[in-house]
């Protein structure tokens, strides 16, 4: 059977790999929060630089993840395009000044403020990308559930994540098999048919898939019940690793980034770093 890589966990040895899942999860959350809150170009640039260094350390190579990077690029391009399409002078509003560079046509002007806004929004997205990718590529999926439990998520919900990861390949294979067999009976969902027809056709694949998933739910929950899942309020984890010195350092570093990012961002009372004010 064809193997389908799902989460692209890439097993290598690097300091990033050695950190526990818990540490990486905390780091990832702190990082995401900082990048979401801040609109300060200086903070974002710093984060991007630090992210690049961590990426280098992780032994993950660009070509391991070029598909993902491509998708991220397309996403960013489209997002920027739509923002410009709807509000070509949004930056002017946001930064309360206007330096017109040139005009493309009609209301579609190009201003320094708009370009700066696009730069910031792009930075906000790309500074998360390396850390998100690393989190996925360097964390053993087996550690997800126990990491979630460690940061306070109920182990039942955490285990649902583990089950999702466990059964994604099975569901994927089943989807593929069912859809091939149905295609042989004239069911086509990719072709040139009308939208409504294609939606109706997709039911011919989804209904058997759902019925078989419901059966699977029954079997798996029986199997789990028979082996004592949910017996106690707590549970231990086969794959959990204790936090070491590097873990505490990394967590400390994450907290510093979060704090520093927030302090720098809000120092002047505004979330936006506005270079145009001083001009």
């Amino acid at each position, binding site marked *: 059977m064809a193997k389908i890589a799902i989460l692209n966990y890439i097993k290598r040895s690097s300091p990033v790999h050695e950190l526990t899942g818990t540490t990486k999860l905390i780091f990832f959350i702190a990082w995401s929060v900082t990048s979401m809150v801040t609109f300060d170009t200086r903070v974002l640039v710093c984060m991007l630089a630090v992210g690049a260094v961590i990426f280098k350390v992780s032994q993950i190579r660009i070509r391991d993840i070029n598909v993902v990077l491509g998708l991220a690029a397309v996403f960013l391009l489209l997002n920027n395009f739509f923002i410009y399409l709807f509000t070509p002078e949004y930056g002017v509003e946001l930064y309360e000044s206007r330096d017109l560079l040139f005009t493309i046509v009609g209301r579609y002007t190009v201003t320094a403020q708009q370009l700066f806004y696009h730069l910031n929004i792009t930075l906000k997205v790309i500074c998360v990308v390396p850390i998100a990718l690393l989190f996925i590529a360097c964390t053993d999926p087996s550690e997800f559930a126990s990491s979630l439990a460690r940061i306070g998520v109920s182990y039942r919900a955490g285990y649902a994540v583990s089950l999702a990861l466990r059964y994604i390949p099975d569901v994927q294979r089943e989807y593929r098999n069912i859809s091939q067999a149905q295609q042989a009976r004239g069911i086509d969902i990719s072709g040139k048919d009308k939208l409504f027809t294609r939606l109706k056709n997709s039911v011919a694949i989804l209904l058997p898939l759902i019925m078989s998933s419901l059966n699977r739910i029954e079997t798996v929950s029986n199997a789990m019940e028979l082996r004592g899942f949910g017996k106690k309020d707590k*549970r231990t984890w086969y794959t959990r690793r204790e936090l070491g010195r590097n873990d505490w350092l990394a967590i400390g570093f994450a907290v510093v980034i979060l704090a520093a990012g927030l302090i720098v961002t809000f120092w002047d009372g505004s979330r936006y770093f506005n270079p145009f004010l001083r001009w």
Partner: protein
Amino acid sequence: MAQPIISFKDYGFQYTAQASPTLHHINLDIYPGEKVLIAGASGSGKSTIGSCLNGLIPYAYPGESTGKLTIGGKDPKESSIFELSQIVGTVLQDTDGQFIGLTVGEDIAFALENDCVPQDQMKETVHEVAKLVDIDHHLEYAPHDLSGGQKQRVSLAGVMVEQVKVLLFDEPLANLDPAAGRVTIELIDEVQKRTGAAVIIIEHRLEDVLWRSVDRIVLMDEGRIVADMPTKDFLSGDMLLEHGIREPLYLTALRYAGISITKELEPQHVESLTLSGEQKEKVRSWYRDNAGLTGAKKERRELLRVENLSFGYTPEVQNLKDVSFSIEEGEMVSIVGKNGAGKSTLAKLICGFEKPTSGRICLEGRDLSGDTIKERAKTIGYVMQNPNQMISKPMIWDEVEMALLSGDMNEQERKERVEETLKICGLYPFRKWPVSALSYGQKKRVTIAGILVQRPQIIILDEPTAGQDYHHYTEIMEFLKELNTQGFTIVMITHDMHLMLEYTPRAIVFCEGMLLADTTAARVLNDPSLVQRANLKETSLYTLSVMCGIEEPQEFTERFIAYEEARRRR
């Protein structure tokens, strides 16, 4: 005598959702260290007994019980499913469903994790148990890197970590190829000897389970125990067939030869048989008398040709290597080999689901490589293993009609075609029924009808009888045989040695992506080296014929099959 660990006293059970009880007046004691086989056809209540033992009844499946049941001295109703699971460990039929962890190690540890066992102790136990079932070198493996047999070892280890007193196996052979099934039976035997746990095996494949001795056989039918006796006594009676269980082939052969099966014959294994010289002569004379039954092969027209076909899902792995063969019109062929040998991949290539890296497939001399899946489907039909994976319309009529809707037939033509197809498949009386009202075997017919409605020249079926008891197996296979006599060419991918022997004159054997043999089914199963390389299993007929001094064991098998078929036809 010791206290029984499990004791049913006049026990009855009725599921809340059902109108009548599933179990009636069950009296059964199981003692520590015993090995018991619970046999019975589908719907006989044998699985319900299993659910009573592990606590799924009443905790997951509510219902009314009567009489008394004690497990380890406790009444399950006053216990909990967790307490019961520490006495009875269950290995479910669906090894993928039971494999919960992301890796082997995690899955074995699952019960310990739930019990809050500290990690170092947990790792130690996991290692010990993994060693016991010989999976300790695979602790880091993910489930999709394992074979069915290996997954089963993991399941077994996962329940053994709790040091249960009873090991319950629910249809352990259903998803395994013949050789893996045999290894499983050996493993169960070994584990029992080492741990001293009582073992209960629920299975309908009697001969395969009896590869290793069991102390007792309990036969179920319609919710009642109809027999409960030591293996020897059990086999010397003739209650098997009337309760829908297939008798071991060597015993059937002895009966055909006019030998009555008695305890003294030691009938529990083919190797243990103590046949007298006179009895052996009887078998030989039966063999001589049936010489005329096996006929010569008919000359037919070539329909499908596969030439030098190679394929890999990824560039690094070759799932099929230079495969060539042809199928003639009106044939019924088995494709056999162990899991992962490339059988299903071959079917996918023939149907056009995947594109070959090299080689070609021709139908009536025409290269199919330019045809889409849909175009090929008009000449080559593909039926998936599990009918529930194909049925996508609630009503039978709609399900069968589906493939025609995208074609250019008008309504009247479609109606006629569907009606005709339903008649061929014996489903015409049910045409206005919802699919949900049908039995498994009938659903299988519906999916076959859904393919036949396009009038393909060849039908490929993936494991048509997997998991079916003898009754349903016979029902499905007789139906396919009937279709074959009506002129449909049928190709089956299968693990089932009986199926191959009884229904398909020809077998194509695969091993690691290569075509290993293309010959008669009987010859395949009488060639020890082929049997071993393809993970098959020789039949007990082979052993019997050797024992009786018959020089051509393969001819013995062929005569036996022909004789059986002639009997069935009468």
